[in-house]
């Protein structure tokens, strides 16, 4: 084995580094799928736009050659209106990759070529890969790659990252490509060409602009691109952007006339029929909420027996360790601190994986963008757009990803508001807390309680976005321009990959931050008087802060768990398990809380507090990085804590009133 690895390492060292390939294309044309095919990596792919929020890097090797492959965020233009457009454009200018592969959608070639033309205006060494050729065939679309190649003057490949058709030829084509062999320009009208020539001659003489293509700079100045006007110091009175855009489209139409044949009348097929109902004015929202209910009910109920199996297995393992080690404190730290603490979280792995599997089906099938479309109108009244909704949807998995995906929102104000309210969307890390508490306190109704918490999280996100918008800005959101992807049957392999990619994040946390937190919590609960938890450091911390939470009725164990929960929300479960000695007694921590007199209303108040209070540390760090200001971070902490406190207090008071 060692020999084999050594040989492999030697082979890898001898490969000639040919350069970098940048993958570029409109959102949801399958760039990441192509990236995974080229590099053998397993990056997150979904059937909706805006999945790639930052560039990803991989390596493609063949024989003795190796390319670095960079997957750039999807973009319709090379303007710099949104952050992801800016990331893409800056990368092409500053990093100057050896080859740019523009991935186009075979079904919407015209729009894809618009981006290609902008890349061609900027640089040479461009390859066009037309993806989803399988879908095009289904729709009786005919594409002539030779004809296109002749008109565009660059290599053109037809392929399908979904079925694998044409991929081998595409890869061969990349390795055969002769770098530095082409830089093709298409011509504009005579008037515009004169202006381009005039401006180009000015730019060519400027030393500070020598790294840029002077023709591209001229076109951008004529388009009135703010960044380029600033860079060149030239600001024209007249803006030629609409003429340039029109001429690009005219040229594209001319090229496609012979090379691209689409059936005249659009067939009322499965896609249109499905969209007709899923995006229905009245039914659309009702269907969306029905799906949400089914998803959470299944997550809870169907995951329960699997969680039970893990629980029993871990319980037996803890007892085994206890009997194996004679040193009391060591046996205790292993069985109760580590197995009890981490195990309390691991029990919920089946639920998390089931949730991601079903979310994967909804994403892969193309349903989720329809949900965004349906709620777009409602979002607009909240001064957000459906694009924000897409970011918020990612928050059901992890709030960190959700905040990072706000980069594709073009309006800065809307982006900041979405980033601040994102942590209110109930992430998967909170699910173990809900399942543990709701399972014991609400029995057969646990699924409905969890579903209600998720609905409440959407409601609070909506209300908070209005509030924060009013507090910080008075702007209106940009209307959502998002093309709905085609429906497709999810592939089992993609679903497994999707579920694993998202679920492993949870497992990694269990092996890192939750493990460390469990040991710290065990230490704080075991010392200074071993075995006497009421005298422990953890109890002292809890008792010290208990008065603040006394009006809500939280016990010191709950208070301490909330403090540690700021590191990662799952830690709440492990802390409660350690502090209530549930691992010792073999029952759920929630059952122990019930014995201590916590009512259903108290439990609900706790769940709402967990949903709303201060986001976890990684989320706070990303929030600061993405918004760029401390005041937004402070606002998020103060606002979320106050909101959590008020909501929990109202529930608790209602409980006292009715019970």
């Amino acid at each position, binding site marked *: 084995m060692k020999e084999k690895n050594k040989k492999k390492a030697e082979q890898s060292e001898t490969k000639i580094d040919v350069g970098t390939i940048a993958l570029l294309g409109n959102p949801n044309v399958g760039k990441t799928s192509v990236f995974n095919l080229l590099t053998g990596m397993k990056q997150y792919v979904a059937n909706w736009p805006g999945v790639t929020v930052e560039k990803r890097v991989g390596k493609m090797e063949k024989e003795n050659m190796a390319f670095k492959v960079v997957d750039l965020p999807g973009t319709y233009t090379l303007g710099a209106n949104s952050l992801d457009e800016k990331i893409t454009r800056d990368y092409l200018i500053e990093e100057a990759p050896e080859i740019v592969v523009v991935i186009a959608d075979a079904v919407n070639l015209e729009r894809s070529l618009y981006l290609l033309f902008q890349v061609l205006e900027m640089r040479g060494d461009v390859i066009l890969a037309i993806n989803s050729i399988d879908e095009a065939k289904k729709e009786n679309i005919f594409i002539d790659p030779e004809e296109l190649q002749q008109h565009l003057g660059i290599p053109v490949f037809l392929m399908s990252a979904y079925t694998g058709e044409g991929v081998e030829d595409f890869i061969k084509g990349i390795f055969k490509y002769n770098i530095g062999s082409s830089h093709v320009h298409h011509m504009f009208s005579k008037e515009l060409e004169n202006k381009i020539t005039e401006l180009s001659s000015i730019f060519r003489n400027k030393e500070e602009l020598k790294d840029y293509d002077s023709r591209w700079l001229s076109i951008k100045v004529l388009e009135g691109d703010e960044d380029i006007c600033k860079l060149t110091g030239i600001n024209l009175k007249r803006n030629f952007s609409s003429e340039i855009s029109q001429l690009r489209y005219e040229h594209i139409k001319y090229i496609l006339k012979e090379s691209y044949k689409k059936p005249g009348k659009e067939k009322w097929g499965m896609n249109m*029929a499905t969209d007709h109902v899923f995006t229905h004015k009245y039914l659309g929202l009702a*269907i969306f909420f029905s799906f949400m209910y089914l998803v959470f*009910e*299944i997550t809870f109920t169907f995951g329960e027996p699997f969680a039970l199996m893990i629980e029993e297995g871990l319980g037996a393992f803890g007892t085994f360790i206890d009997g194996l080690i004679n040193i009391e404190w060591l046996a205790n730290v292993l069985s109760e601190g580590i197995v009890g603490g981490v195990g309390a979280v691991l029990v919920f792995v089946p639920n998390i994986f089931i949730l991601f599997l079903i979310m994967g089906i909804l994403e892969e099938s193309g349903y989720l963008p329809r949900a965004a479309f349906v709620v777009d109108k409602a979002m607009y009244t909240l001064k957000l757009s459906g694009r924000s909704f897409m970011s918020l949807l990612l928050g059901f998995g992890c709030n960190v990803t959700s905040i990072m995906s706000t980069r594709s929102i073009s309006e800065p104000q809307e982006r900041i508001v979405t980033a601040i309210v994102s942590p209110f969307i109930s992430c998967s890390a909170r699910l173990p807390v809900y399942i543990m508490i709701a399972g014991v306190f609400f029995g057969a109704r646990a699924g409905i309680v969890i579903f209600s918490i998720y609905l409440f999280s959407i409601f609070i996100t909506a209300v908070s976005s209005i509030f924060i918008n009013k507090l910080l800005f008075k702007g209106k959101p940009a209307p959502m321009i998002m093309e709905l992807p085609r429906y497709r049957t999810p592939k089992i392999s993609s679903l497994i990959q999707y579920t694993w990619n998202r679920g492993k994040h949870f497992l990694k946390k269990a092996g890192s931050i939750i493990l460390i937190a469990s040991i710290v919590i065990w230490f704080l609960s075991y010392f200074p008087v071993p075995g006497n938890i009421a005298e422990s450091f953890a109890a002292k911390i809890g008792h010290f802060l208990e008065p603040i939470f006394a009006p809500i009725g939280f016990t010191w164990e709950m208070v301490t768990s909330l403090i540690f929960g700021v590191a990662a929300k799952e830690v709440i479960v492990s802390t409660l398990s350690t502090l209530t000695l549930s691992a010792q007694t073999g029952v759920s921590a929630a059952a122990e809380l019930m014995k201590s007199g916590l009512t259903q209303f108290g439990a609900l108040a706790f769940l709402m507090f967990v949903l709303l209070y201060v986001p976890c540390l990684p989320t706070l760090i990303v929030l600061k990085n993405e918004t760029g200001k401390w005041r937004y971070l402070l606002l998020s902490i103060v606002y979320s804590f106050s909101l959590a406190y008020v909501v929990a207090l109202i529930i608790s008071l209602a409980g006292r009133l009715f019970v």
Partner: protein
Amino acid sequence: MSIKGINSWLWILGILYSLMALNTLTGFTYAEQDIIFGLVLCVSAGIYFFGLRESIEKPQRRAAHLLIGTIFSSLLGLFKFLILLGSLLSGYLEQDFHFSVDSFNLSVIIGSVITLVIHLRIRKQFT
């Protein structure tokens, strides 16, 4: 499927799922009372009834409602089946069965088999 057939199925399934919804909302017979699932069944019935509101001149639109309505109803049956399976597994592991015929809403599971057959028939019209 002819437009007459589509209309008939929209009526039959709309009424059938409305009755199922009513039964689930009230827990009248062979079903446990479940308000939210009852509302989900109302949505299913709504898909069929909104189909009948589409213009008679545009039969594809009516057919679209039957296409989606039937797959939605089938999913509800699958959902109930998975819930039943989960409960059986939990009961087996805990050696404690709390099982009643009412708990798995038999009519929804039977309904899903019928709707799946209709879905497969109407699907041919779109592919």
